[in-house]
């Protein structure tokens, strides 16, 4: 019996998780970041390790992004400000979410993995494709899913020509 089949009986199917991730993708693509923040638990974290050390922790390794909940909010304030020059005018974003799996169930917590390609377009720039593995810990409370941990593991050897991660990836 697969993990997702066993979960169906507990009330959270892979389809529900997918729908949740697709909603999140839409909110991020459309820069509806207030609504995106509503998907986060009060202790949510958002992390992107450096490309060459996906196995470290932000306490002992240099990450690209390692936000706690308060920092996530400050990041949203920053990237939506017209003074955030790297995102003014805002990039046009379109992300594809695939290979969604529930890898582990731990009480109310679901460990979810997925793959992502996030395309980013800016005027007069060539296009950028951020290829990454997503690692979530979702919290299921009263039937509603929330994001407790969100890790983005970049597939490329280095950021290289992708330059900055000045938006919510």
């Amino acid at each position: 019996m697969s993990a997702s089949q066993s979960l169906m009986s507990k009330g959270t199917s892979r389809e529900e998780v997918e729908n949740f991730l697709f909603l999140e993708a839409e909110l991020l693509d459309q820069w509806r970041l207030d609504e995106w923040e509503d998907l986060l638990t009060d202790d949510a974290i958002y992390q992107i390790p450096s490309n060459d050390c996906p196995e470290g922790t932000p306490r002992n390794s240099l990450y690209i992004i390692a936000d706690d909940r308060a920092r996530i909010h400050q990041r949203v304030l920053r990237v939506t400000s017209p003074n955030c020059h790297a995102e003014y005018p805002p990039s046009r974003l379109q992300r594809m979410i695939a290979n969604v799996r529930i890898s582990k169930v731990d009480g109310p917590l679901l460990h979810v993995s997925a793959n992502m390609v996030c395309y980013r377009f800016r005027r007069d720039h060539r296009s950028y494709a951020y290829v990454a593995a997503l690692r979530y810990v979702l919290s299921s409370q009263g039937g509603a899913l929330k994001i407790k941990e969100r890790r983005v593991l970049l597939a490329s050897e280095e950021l290289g020509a992708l330059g900055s991660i000045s938006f919510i990836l």
Partner: protein
Amino acid sequence: MTAHRPYIIDDDETQVFRLNREVLVSDEVSRLETERIFQTCWIYVGHASELPQPGDFRTRIVAGRPLIFCRSQAGEVRAFFNTCRHRGAIVCRERAGNARRFNCLYHGWSYGSDGSLAQVPGANGYPASFDKDEFGLISPPRFESYRDFWFMCLDEKAPALLDYLAGATDYIDLVVDQSPSGRMEIIHGTQEYDIAANWKLLVENSVDDYHLPSTHATWLNFMANSGVNVKPLTNEGLVLPAKGGAVDLGNGHFTTDNVNYRGRPVANWIPLYGEDSKQEIGEIRSELTARLGEARASRVADTNRNLVIFPNLVINDGSSVTVRTFSPVGPARMHVTAWALGPAEESESARARRLDSFLTFYGPGGFATPDDVEALEMVQRGLANWRDDPWSEMSRGMGKPQEDQLNSDEHHLRVFWRRWNDLMERAQ
């Protein structure tokens, strides 16, 4: 096509300093820089802490050369051109690791960690004139270190590294003094990103505090939200909340030298670090004072600096310590590599605070660096008009004595450009 002269206009009498924008867009200038800058200056290779064990290696591109930066089995830090003496293939293809041998995949020649040619398949097929001892991996002509920072120079006749660094050693010492044992280390994790701009624009940007209020408005807003006073000291003609100077260190090196307002993991608390960190930061400060005396401890902890070692090494000792180097890919693109540096004996909690503080400002996901990248790329794009608007203006603070030069003046940028111009114009 040769770029139009002059590269700079530098007139003390009329207090005019202008930069010929062609030097930021020209393929010819970029090609000449390879010879006259990157093949004559000391270029940063890496930090000894990146190679803790015998056999450890890192591969990287330095001054356009694929290099192996490694520690031999005998424990010596070494550098080799990463190319097989037989037909030229890269002999070490991994980013980092530990190896007793570097093996060429093509015909199987293999080299020891001291560079010597260890094995040649079918060695008996060579004539008597073939001497294996002549075919060790080649090292850069010069390879020297200062306080664990290793540099190479492709010019055999260059002055010693210590002489080259000139006044910059004082500021490297200030960074290293954070460590009770005098041992700083590169922390695991590398940030590597490109900027679609000329590399010299990042030299300027790394020390130019004039751009902070405008380019980094959202970072200042974030700092204000966290409880830091970011109001500028307008009465002194400054654009920032604390006074800062700009210092010429000789040989084209320069630094900002600022009274700190933005917090220092060593050892100047700000609310962002959290109430529960006050005690440990106090202890770090006490150790500094006991070891260095009150004045030097204050110099280490209450001032911050962005240091440029000509041409392409930046040590930003500010919200954290970042070691950053960058290399041109033609006139309109650069590769940037950045690391975090911390005291080797730092506690787990102090290390975590240092890294968190790093991310508030620096790097491709930081609250400031992406806007620097955008600014530099917008400059590069605007420079397509170089024929029609050929000069950049760089005279802020001109005419004032050195001790009055501010971090928001352009004195230190002029130091860079004068040195760059001297090297580029020097008769070859």
